[in-house]
C-alpha cells in the first residue's frame, strides 16, 4: 500500500500539522512516511501545502505532481491541484470559500464542511482534525488508534489534555463527510 496525498489550503488552517499527525500515525503502524512542505515565501500569509506519503515500501520521490488523493481547503489550491488527482483518485474539499467547485468526471469527489462543524463545536482550531476525520473515513490508510498515538507524539505534552477534543473533531469529520461523486 502506498498513499500519495497533497493537503493544500491557507497558512494557519493547520495544513502542515494535519500532515504531520498523519505521518506520525503511519510511523505508529510501522510504515514509511514522508512529509514535504512548501516552504517558499508563499507560506507567509498565503497558501500552504504539504505532500504526505504513507507506504509499506521505501518511499522514492517526496515531491510529486500526481496524487492518489487531494485535500483542498481554498480556491487557489483547487485551481492548482484539481488536475493533479490521479484518474480514479480522491478529491476531498471544504466548500467554505470555494467559488468554483471541482469539475472532473474521472475522480471521486467528497465534501466536508470542516469550517462550519469546527465553529459549531466551539473551536475553529480543530478544523484540520475534522477534515482529517473525513479523509480517514474515505481512505482509512491509518487506524484510528494509531492516529491517537500519532497525536500524542506530535503534540507537546502540555497540549495532551486537548487530545479528547481532537478525537471528537476527528469523529465529527468521520460522520459528516458527503459523497458528491463516486465512481463505480
Amino acid at each position, binding site marked *: 500500500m502506498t498513499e500519495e496525498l497533497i493537503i493544500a489550503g491557507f497558512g494557519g488552517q493547520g495544513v502542515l500539522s494535519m500532515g*504531520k499527525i498523519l505521518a506520525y500515525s503511519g510511523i505508529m503502524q510501522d510504515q514509511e512516511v*514522508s512529509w*514535504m*512542505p512548501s*516552504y*517558499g*515565501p508563499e507560506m507567509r500569509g498565503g497558501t500552504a501545502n504539504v505532500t504526505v506519503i504513507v507506504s509499506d515500501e521505501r518511499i522514492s520521490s517526496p515531491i*510529486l505532481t500526481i496524487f492518489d488523493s487531494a485535500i483542498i481547503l481554498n480556491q487557489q489550491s483547487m485551481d492548482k491541484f484539481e488536475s493533479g488527482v490521479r484518474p480514479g483518485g480522491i478529491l476531498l474539499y471544504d466548500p467554505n470559500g470555494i467559488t468554483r467547485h471541482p469539475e472532473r468526471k474521472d475522480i471521486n469527489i467528497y465534501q466536508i464542511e470542516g469550517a462550519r462543524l469546527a465553529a459549531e463545536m466551539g473551536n475553529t482550531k480543530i478544523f484540520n482534525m475534522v477534515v482529517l476525520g473525513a479523509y480517514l473515513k474515505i481512505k482509512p490508510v491509518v487506524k484510528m488508534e494509531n492516529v491517537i498515538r500519532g497525536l500524542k507524539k506530535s503534540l507537546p505534552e502540555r497540549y495532551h489534555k486537548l487530545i479528547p477534543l481532537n478525537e471528537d473533531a476527528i469523529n465529527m469529520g468521520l460522520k459528516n463527510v458527503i459523497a458528491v461523486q463516486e465512481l463505480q
Partner: protein
Amino acid sequence: MSELKLMKGNEALAEAAIRAGADAYFGYPITPQSEVIEYLMAEKPFDRTGMVVLQAESEIAAINMVYGAAGAGKKVMTSSSSPGISLKQEGISYISGAELPCLYANVVRGGPGLGTIQPSQADYFQSTKGGGHGDYHQIVLAPASVQEMADFVKDGFDLAFKYRIPVLILSDGVIGQMMEKVDLFDPIPRLTNDEIIERYPWATTGKKSGTERRIITSLDLDSHKMEKHNQKLQAKYKEITEKEVRYELIDCDDAEYIFVAYGSSARIAQKAVKLARAKGIKAGLFRLITLFPFPSVKMFEMCGKGIKGFLAVEMSAGQMVEDVRLAVKGCSKVEHFGRFGGVVHTPEEVLEALEQKIIGG
C-alpha cells in the same frame, strides 16, 4: 537504545551532532537550513553534554571558530546554505591546508548570488572541485533521506578524524525541509581533554616541557617544503579515492538505461525508474553517496554490460554530468537533465528526458 522520530532533515542533522558527541557548533542562520541552529538552541546541549552552540557574527567568523576548535582536537561543525557556504570557503581552504578535521553541511538553495531559498544542486562544482583556493579536496557525502542526514554526521566525523580533512554533507532544501522517520543512533559521549591529548598527537593542547611545539598552519614560504606538503595531501586524496567510495545501485542488474543522481534528485529519479519500468523501459538508478571520491571505477565497469546510456539528473545546468562523462570515457552515451534556479524536476519530467535524450536521441 535507538529512538524512532519524525523529523526534518535539518533537525536530524542537529540532533545527530549532539549524539555524535560534538564539542561545538558555530553557525549563522540562513534559509533553508536555519532549523539546525534553532534546534540546537532549543535543545540546549550545553546543559547536557557541554557542547558549545554559538551564533557567530557572520559565516566567516563561524568557519574560523571551527578552524580554531579543530586545531585543539575538538569535534566541531558548522552549517549554512549556498551564499553562506561561499563565505566559508577561505576557511575551508585553510583547514584543508592545515590538515584539520571538521564537518560542515550545505543545505543548498538556488543561485548564483543570493539566488532563491528554494532547493538546488548547483553547488556541485564548488563542493567537489575546490571551492576555495589551492590543490585540495574534501570528502563530500550526499544524503538522500532524513535518516542519512543523521547517519552522515556520525560517519562524517569519523572520516574527518581518520584523514584529518574537512567533510562536507551536501544536502539541499528538499532533504533539509522534509520530515521522515529517523532511527537515531545512540549518543556517543564527548571526549575528555585527557582523551583528546592521548588520541590526537597533532592537536594544540598545551605544550609540556620536553615536548615538541605543535604548529597548526597552512603557510610555508619555502616552496619546496610546500610542494612536499602538497604531495602528502595528494597521497591522502588518492587513498580516500581508493577506500572511501560509496554508492547505491537500484534496479541496475538488468538495466539498459541508468539515471545517475544524488540527494533529492536520486529520490525523484527512483520514482522515474518505477514509472519507466511500468512502461517496459529497463531503467535503473546509480545513486552517488560520495561525490568526492566519485565512483568512476564502478561506473566505467558497468559501461560494457549492456548499458545503452546514462542520464545525469541534477538540479543544476549540468555539473555532475561532467564527472559521469569522465568516468565512462566515451564508452556510452551520457546526457544531462535538470531543472534549476530553485525549480525541482518531477519524476515524469525525468522519464520524459530519458525517452527524448537517451532512448530517442
